């Protein structure tokens, strides 16, 4: 079965002050229909930039520096802007991290959802209005008839995020990109929003790219995981395999760092050192200066991605 999204060797660079810094380096991933892939990593590892690149929303001084992004069979890199505009909102929907500021304060919620429909479908205004009400209901907003004419500032954060979701799925896209959709929300609302995404995925068979730094969310809502570190993929596996048998030392460190119930009195584990900034990436493996299992080889050459088990890959010189 063809994956809905297939990314290979994607590289993104930023040109600042005459220097070109590669922020995302040869990243690859794929998602099947109806599947949720979690893209995990620390702040600044390049996951959001990757997501924006999928939509062609990288703006100068950033630029895509190579690789391929295939939506079903269509190559998106180097597609002309007008074609990309047809795809955004229609075949790919995206929701962002801060719903508080991601909606235009001067337009009603109904206007903003309706805008997507008017842009990508040929529905009449009345039909659009009806569809908006349906969508508001579908995303779990009570009293849609009243809410549809409200402005963003009249809604709570959780409700705004639901509106964002409604906008993103209005045209029944194949792929939904959710960039840290719950980071800015209360914990109780988090669960609801993620649950909503799961439900919609089941109903509409959407592929979901869930970007997060929260392993708890990964465990509960993702089918597969890809771990990113300093712009490169470290490991990729099904959720079960990753948590049961992590191969990359970074992943191992992440999992060890999670405080567990019952381990009172023990010192909390944390990975030594800090994430290097893009202009200071070590040659060779980027994790080499923090890795507890580092070998000489790791400092010299970038490890290649090797298959460890079925559908479980890691980029590490250790086996």
């Amino acid at each position, binding site marked *: 079965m063809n994956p809905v999204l297939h990314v290979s060797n994607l590289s993104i660079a930023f040109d600042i002050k005459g220097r070109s810094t590669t922020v995302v380096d040869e990243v690859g991933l794929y998602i099947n229909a109806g599947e949720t892939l979690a893209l995990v990593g620390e702040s600044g590892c390049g996951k959001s930039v990757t997501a924006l690149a999928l*939509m062609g*929303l990288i703006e100068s001084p950033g630029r895509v520096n190579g690789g391929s992004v295939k939506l079903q069979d269509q190559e998106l890199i180097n597609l002309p802007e*007008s074609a990309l505009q*047809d795809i955004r*909102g229609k075949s790919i929907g*995206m929701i*962002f991290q801060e719903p508080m500021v991601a909606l*235009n*304060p001067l337009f009603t919620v109904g206007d903003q959802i309706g*805008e997507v429909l008017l842009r990508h479908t040929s529905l009449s205004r009345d039909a659009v209005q009806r569809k908006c009400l349906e969508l508001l209901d579908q995303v779990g907003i009570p009293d849609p008839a009243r809410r549809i004419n409200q402005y963003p500032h009249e809604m709570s954060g959780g409700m705004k995020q639901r509106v964002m979701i409604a906008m993103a799925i209005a045209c029944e896209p194949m792929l939904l990109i959710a960039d840290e959709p719950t980071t800015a929300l209360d914990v109780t609302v988090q669960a609801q929003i993620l649950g909503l995404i799961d439900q919609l995925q089941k109903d509409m068979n959407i592929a979901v790219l869930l970007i997060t730094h929260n392993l708890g969310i990964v465990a509960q809502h993702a089918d597969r995981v890809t771990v990113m570190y300093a712009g490169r993929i470290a490991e990729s596996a099904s959720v079960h395999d990753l948590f049961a048998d992590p191969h990359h030392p970074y992943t191992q460190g992440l999992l060890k760092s999670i405080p567990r119930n019952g381990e009172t009195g023990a010192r909390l584990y944390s990975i030594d050192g800090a994430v290097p900034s893009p202009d200071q990436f070590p040659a060779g493996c980027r994790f080499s200066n923090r890795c507890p299992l580092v070998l000489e080889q790791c400092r010299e050459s970038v490890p290649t991605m090797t298959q460890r088990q079925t559908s479980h890959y890691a980029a590490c010189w250790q086996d």
Partner: protein
Amino acid sequence: MRAFLIRNFLQRLLLLFFVSVIAHAMVHIAPGEPSEVDPANPRMKPEDIAKIRAAFHLDEPLHLQYVYWMRDLFTGELKSFKDSQPVLPKIAGRFVNSLPIFICATLIVWTLAFPTGIHAAVRRGSFYDRGSTFVAYSLISIPGFFLAYLVILWVVQQFGIPVIGMRTFGASEAQPWLRFMDRIWHLVIPSLMSALVGIAVLSRYVRSQMVDVLQQEYVRTARAKGLDNDTVIYRHALRNALLPFITMFGLMLPALIGGSVIFEQIFAWPGIGRLGYEAILARDFPLVLTINFIAAVLTLAGTFLSDVMYAMADPRIRLS
């Protein structure tokens, strides 16, 4: 929103009161203690002081002076020192003369400043952006009359556009159409000169507002919805960027009145600025104080209007 506006209005009435008090107080800075003639001030002769004392009832206690002034002002009793004509009609007449320049200048400013600012913001860092920035700063840095004289020299020599007064002498004999065109021609250069600094300042503000707005998240959301560039900029970004300018609307008037003093002098335009200047030269206190007061009143009215419009335009205020 209604409560907000009512409160706003009442506050402005209060401000109006204080404005009038301060305007009135100005008569007290001038001659020092009215009973003395300050030998260092060649502008205050004993007969002037006597006139002032009479007109402003300076022998009375302070608060009564104020009351008299207000009463005289509104009943038309307050008379100009120069020709003993009531003050308010004089001001009104000259204000009507100044109005065409104000309106034209404002139109020119807004028509030119917005596209320039928006274009510079959208193409931030480009040659157009940096070039227009430099031009804007240069315009702000030129003394108004310096530029005016340069322009007059060039314009009169090259194009023969009239620059003196409101109409050509003897034009009242001509047909209405010619008279109208004559008035328009006379309007061109003064309006343009009054507008130049406004264009520079406003286009800078527009640019910086647009730059801010373009970096907002909702612009990115709009793009992610597949909307084309024009829609993103002109429908989503611009409306948000434009909102603060509604408030600037009300503040344009005092700027125009202030600037009109110079430009009306240069172009011999019989407007309110020139009236004020002549009044100051003639030490015509009733007129001077009243003009200051009226100008402040107009500012208050203008800013109140701005607040009303802003409240209507921004749903965050409208619905609170």
